[in-house]
Each structure stands twice: as C-alpha cells, then as structure tokens.
C-alpha cells in the first residue's frame, strides 16, 4: 500500500513539475503578449493541480490524516486566475490593440473596453465645491 501511494505521489509531482516548466517556457518562447497569456494560465491548472493532488494523496495514505486545504486552494485558484488573466488582457488591449483589429461584436455597441455599456448613464463628476 505504502509503495503504491508513493508511486502515485511521485507521478503527480512529476506531472506538476513538467507542466509548470512548460508554462514558464511558453512565457519565454511565445511572441506576443496575448499569446504569452496562455502560458501561465495553463501552468496554474495542471501545474499546481498536480502538486495539490500529490499533497492530498500523501496526507491521506502516508500520514493517515485527511487534509482539505488543497481543495480550497484549487477553488480559490479557479476563482482568481481568470480575473487576473482578464485584467492583463484588457490593460494590454487598451494600450496596444485598436478596436479595428478585433472582429465584429455581432451585436450593438462595440467591445466593452472601448465603449460605455449600452444603456448606461454617464455620471459627470462635479468638481465644484458644495456651497
């Protein structure tokens, strides 16, 4: 039992290491910023995921105690990673990508980063001091 558990733990650690390395290599190798965005978001899934599964297996079978922290890390990672990627993409696009280079929205109003939301009211910020 012990041996099988250790083999499984090692397997997931190696998988995690490989994908972490490939994700980082993608950062170096890919040309444009938007392409590079694909590298690390992938490393966070299988790269971190493999290490977390290995950790759960280790505590369950070698240390004989259940640990749920890994599940929480996975959930928090899945909640936060897309937001970061989206912010980086948006910040880069507003500086370096003109809207004409993007495909059509096929709906009204253009892409959200370049226009106000449809139906939104623009509130002018008053600079006058209250009397």
């Amino acid at each position, binding site marked *: 039992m012990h041996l099988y558990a250790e083999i499984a733990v090692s397997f997931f650690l190696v998988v995690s290491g490989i994908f972490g390395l*490939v994700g980082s290599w993608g950062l170096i190798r890919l040309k444009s910023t938007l392409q590079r965005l694909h590298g690390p978001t992938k490393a966070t899934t299988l790269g971190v995921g493999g290490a977390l599964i290995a950790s759960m297996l280790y505590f369950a079978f070698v240390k004989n105690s259940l*640990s749920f922290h890994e599940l929480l890390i996975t959930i928090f990672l899945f909640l936060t990673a897309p937001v970061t990627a989206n912010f980086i993409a948006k910040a880069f696009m507003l500086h370096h990508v003109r809207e004409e280079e993007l495909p059509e929205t096929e709906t009204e109003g253009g*892409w959200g980063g370049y226009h106000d939301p449809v139906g939104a009211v623009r509130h002018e910020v008053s600079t006058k001091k209250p009397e």
Partner: protein
Amino acid sequence: MLSRLFPHPYLTVILAVVWLLLVNKVTPGNVLLGTVFGIIIPLITSPYWPDRPKIGRPFRIAEYVLIVLWDIIVANVVVAWIILFRPQDKIRTAWVTVPLDLTSPEAITVMAGTITMTPGTVSAMLSADGRSVLVHCLDTDDPQATRDQIKSRYERRLKEIFE
C-alpha cells in the same frame, strides 16, 4: 424578513463550510464561528450583490465541473505540445467572437472563467451590451468550430443550470 436576514442563503452555507475546511477541525466553536461569518458577510456585502442568482438545476453543476476538469487536462497537453514543438510562425492565433444566449451575469461570469481556465483560450472582453464575448485563441485552424464547441459544450450546460 427572512430574505433580509439571509440575502444569499447559498453563500451563507458555503462560507460556513469554507471556514470549517480552513481550520480543518470540526468543533462546536468552529461551527458557531463559521455560521456567524456566514450570516454577517452576506449581510455586509449585499448592497454590492442585490439580486439573488437563480439556480434551476443544481445537480447539473457536478456534471459541468467534471467536463471542465477533463477539458482542462486534455487542453493542457495540447497547449504544452504547441509550446514545445510547434514552429513559431505556424501558431495560428485568432480572435473569436462568441455570441451569448446567456443573460444572467453570474452565468456569463462562470462561462468567461471557464473559457480562460481551459488552456488555449482566454476570454478577453465583453461587448458593450453584454451579448457577446471576445475570445483569444492560441491556436485554431477553424474559428467557427472553436466557437461552436464553446457554445455547445459550456454555454448549453450553463443555461440549464442557471436558467
């Protein structure tokens, strides 16, 4: 009255469970503290999240999670292959517009997050009227097929869960 006290009942349960998982020990004190957090946090944050999301079929969530996890594993291998072995000029990067049938903000958020977490695609922007999402594909030979796959695999299931 009850909905004033518990603006987000699901969130209350989730917060209490997350607290118990964080401390990793189930004792009466921890259960009590978790419940207190579960009641106070939704109350304080409810001005920022006024509507209660409608979840039609909660049991479909498990199916959705499994499918997304499987897709993440498959796509990880595909993207790793592209990064390692594909010559730089043969990577066919493309923008894809995915028109949305979903209307609930929570459903659209989950879908955009799913697109980003599955390797090879990143959701970059929403249209100004919130009816379509701009997706950046690392490598695709057929943008139309990518769009159809996102719509049939993720959006259809999210529509069943949320609407």
